[in-house]
């Protein structure tokens, strides 16, 4: 999608107030408001994020959340700054930080990035907090951990999963050039997915006012200027209507039909390069591509247990709406730009707006409970891209050998890397571990406990194990930066409920520079 299109889509929401230079906060956040608008920003500003462990990766993530202005963050870490920490963490002040509490030092330097963010250093030991004060964790809107010991992580993940409020959790693991992270949530509702697929113009199923307007045009009496400015939507609707009248009510079916349809359009030109007809020919696929409910929505509609949230009610109404003929979603009022004179374009836009408003009222009548106008409008406007993600519990994949083996066939390097990181975790908590790092065979042994009897001969395994053996405890500055960006992006998507977050594990390998996703 080009930038211009995304700008135009906001037309509907534009105000008509007198314009003057925005306040300093709006100017500061200008470049991100163009991505998630005021609604996303206010969601960020209400968010309370907890990050556990003040590693280089953790502070990189936080930096990318403090800069765009999250409301509050707490950094929980009881450790003191080591010489190694002072060497790889930008949010520690060299040797002066050594020996001080890691959370306090990092919070001090992170806070400098944005005065609007409320920050807190918690110097307690996570193990103690989990044991004595589990409700503490439920007061946050998102929790992120980095290389947290698997025992504590499992306890935290279970606590959050079992609580009905279900705070999302993002556990991040990294070793040298390898990393993965997971997003744990029960359900995630997205209205503004910023889908790159634009909504249907319903050329194939024109609403009565559109068909009537298209039919009413008298091409023959038009002068060449007017003829050159008929919007392509009319050209397609009219030509298709004529076509159907002579083809048993069916649109073009075969390749020959489609070529024929295009020639009929071309034959109506008065000059060889008449732009509006060129546009109609380029957009002719709209005449034979049926407007249908997109598969991801059909799947959602078949989901019998829609949540009893406003979003669930909206989905239920959308399902009812699409069950009635002509089996489509409520019309979108957004019209793309096209060759036309101003008057014709504005008239066409008004036709779409009027029909969209009418269908929105029909939609509203189908709601099981009344909901506020603004929400209904936002939902209908974005209906073609709404999503309801169903997530999984952290660690569930590692106890599902059949799924792991299936992934191993299709996503070999991603699965092998994920398993190698799980093996490193297991090695860390094994009582028999030696100082230093694990050996290749120790890692293999741990992987075999997850997928017993599997052949680990593939190169992807030795590649992943070899990297872990090489740098089991390395939190590299550039990997930290990379993960800091990736995890912050997912956090922003979760908090704003805009765009579509990862559902599952994202696996990263910066030796061969790839990322991949193992879906939940």
């Amino acid at each position: 999608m080009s930038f211009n299109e995304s700008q135009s889509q906001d037309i509907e929401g534009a105000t008509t107030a007198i314009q003057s230079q925005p306040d300093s906060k709006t100017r500061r956040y200008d470049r991100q408001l163009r991505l998630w608008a005021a609604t996303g920003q206010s969601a960020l500003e209400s968010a309370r994020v907890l990050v556990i462990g003040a590693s280089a990766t953790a502070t990189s993530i936080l930096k990318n959340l403090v800069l765009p202005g999250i409301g509050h963050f707490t950094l929980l870490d009881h450790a003191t700054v080591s010489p190694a920490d002072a060497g790889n963490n930008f949010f520690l002040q060299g040797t002066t930080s050594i020996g001080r509490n890691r959370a306090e030092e990092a919070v001090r330097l992170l806070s400098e990035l944005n005065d609007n963010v409320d920050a807190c250093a918690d110097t307690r030991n996570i193990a103690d907090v989990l044991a004595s004060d589990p409700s503490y964790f439920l007061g946050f809107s998102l929790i992120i951990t980095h290389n947290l010991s698997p025992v504590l992580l499992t306890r935290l993940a279970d606590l959050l999963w079992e609580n009905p409020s279900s705070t999302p959790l993002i556990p991040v693991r990294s070793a040298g050039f390898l990393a993965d992270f997971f997003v744990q949530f029960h359900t995630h509702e997205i209205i503004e997915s910023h889908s790159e697929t634009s909504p249907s113009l319903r050329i194939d199923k024109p609403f009565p006012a559109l068909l009537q307007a298209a039919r009413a045009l008298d091409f023959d009496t038009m002068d060449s200027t007017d003829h050159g400015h008929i919007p392509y939507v009319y050209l397609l609707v009219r030509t298709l209507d004529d076509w159907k009248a002579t083809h048993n009510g069916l649109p073009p079916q075969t390749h020959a039909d489609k070529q024929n349809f295009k020639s009929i359009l071309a034959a109506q030109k008065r000059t060889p390069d008449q732009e509006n007809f060129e546009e109609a020919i380029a957009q002719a696929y709209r005449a034979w591509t049926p407007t249908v409910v997109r598969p991801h929505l059909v799947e959602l509609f078949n989901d019998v247990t829609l949540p009893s949230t406003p979003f669930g009610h909206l989905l239920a109404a959308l399902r009812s709406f699409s069950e009635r003929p002509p089996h489509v979603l409520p019309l979108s009022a957004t019209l793309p730009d096209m060759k036309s004179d101003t008057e014709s374009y504005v008239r066409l836009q008004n036709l779409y707006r009027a029909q969209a408003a009418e269908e929105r009222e029909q939609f509203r009548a189908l709601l099981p409970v009344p909901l506020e106008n603004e929400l209904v409008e936002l939902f209908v406007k974005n209906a073609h891209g709404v999503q309801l993600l169903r997530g999984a519990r952290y660690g569930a994949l590692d106890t599902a050998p059949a799924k792991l083996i299936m992934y191993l066939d299709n996503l070999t390097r991603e699965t092998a890397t994920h398993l190698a990181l799980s093996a490193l975790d297991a090695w860390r908590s094994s009582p028999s571990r030696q100082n230093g790092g694990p050996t290749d065979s120790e890692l293999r042994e741990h992987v075999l406990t997850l997928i017993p009897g599997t052949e680990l001969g593939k190169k992807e395994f030795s590649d992943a194990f070899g990297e872990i053996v090489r740098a089991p405890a390395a939190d590299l500055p550039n990997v930290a930066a990379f993960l800091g960006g990736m995890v912050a992006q997912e956090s922003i998507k979760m908090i704003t409920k805009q765009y579509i977050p990862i559902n599952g594990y994202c696996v990263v390998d910066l030796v061969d520079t790839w990322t991949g996703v193992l879906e939940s």
Partner: protein
Amino acid sequence: MVMSTINAPAINGSHYPDWEGRYYHIDQVLDRPGPRTDPDSFMAGEGVKNFLRNQCKVLVIGAGGLGCEILANLALSGFKDIHVIDMDTIDISNLNRQFLFRPKDVGQPKAIAAAEYIMKRVPGVKVTPYHGKIQDKDDDYYMQFNLVICGLDSVEARRWINATLVNLVDPENPESLKPLIDGGTEGFKGQARVILPTVTSCYECSLDMLNKPTTFPICTIANTPRLPEHCIEWASVLEWPRVKGETKIDTDDPEHIKWLCDAARARAEEFKIEGVTWSLTQGVVKNIIPAIASTNAIIAGMLYHLVNSCIHCSLASCCNEAFKIATSSAAYLNNYFMVIGTESVYSYTFEHEKRADCPVCGGESLDISIPGSWTVERLIEMLVEKQDIQIKKPSLSTTKKHIYFQAPPQLEAATRPNLEKKVSELVPDGGDVTVTATTLPFSLSLRITYT
């Protein structure tokens, strides 16, 4: 590997005792190779550490969103001699991502503020800023660096540095080959690549991959506006010059934006078009690209990763005084990385191939075929618009004569009558035309045939 050849003293004035354990993390990957490490180009241990921490000199072009991130990565990774060039000053809208700057720095030169901040935060690193244009510097200046990292938002500046580094290559001298590592972001999307001048594809080779800038036909703007953007373009392209004469628009001046916004709103109202806002006006006239800290961090992480690969290769090639290692290294094979984070996360890496007719690194003429009826003016219009050429204000000549020159004024006046003439009257079928522009340090050779 011949490691003993590299043992230069520490850089003047910046020697700082690295504390024990400072590089605990990064040494894990510098001390030993991994299973996929290319044995020809990987230099393990003290040699590479000494090179990186005491000898390597890196240039960062751009101290904006990517520049801030890459400076921090380089400093933490042990580079001690970093140079940074940026011609901009800090604006309040930079603060949502350019994390080396604070509100009190607004109005200060980016290069200087960034250099000071890095040196304050990371002990022992020397960052030398230059507040100015890359075009101010000559070949000797660029020759002193081991590699160049570029986080620019200007296509023109990237074309300039790319061509400059390609011109710098002397096949007899391995040190003249300066890897160029380039990145860019837009919203949740970004890309990073490594260019080994003359060996891999260059920036110019991939010009056609750029997003085409949004332009509106002048007749739409003048006669048939439909979108609020059309009204804004009308205000800035037609109405401003009509009313304000010679005064140029300063897109950073709120008074100017207000004037354009008001003019665009009045026109929009007249045509019953909705949606002209301050933010949209600013977006259109400044061609604003959305930008966030997280995407910059991802791409900077990638850029540093590419730096690391280049360091190993160029070090290996210097030690062996051989072009071969640097140029055959796997590090350059998959030279282009892209990531899209709007829907889950999708990334991919591929090899972008050289173009034989690339005007910078290719050597062959670019074949173009045009109707025999085209005037010189029409050809110039095409050169400005064509995605893989995009030369603003081109001057044209053949080996025998000037066709059209944009400057100096006398030459422009003398060649202006040619604009109306047919190209075919001036250039024979299959003839060559040389295209130059003051903004580009190279010329483009066209072979013209007529349809």
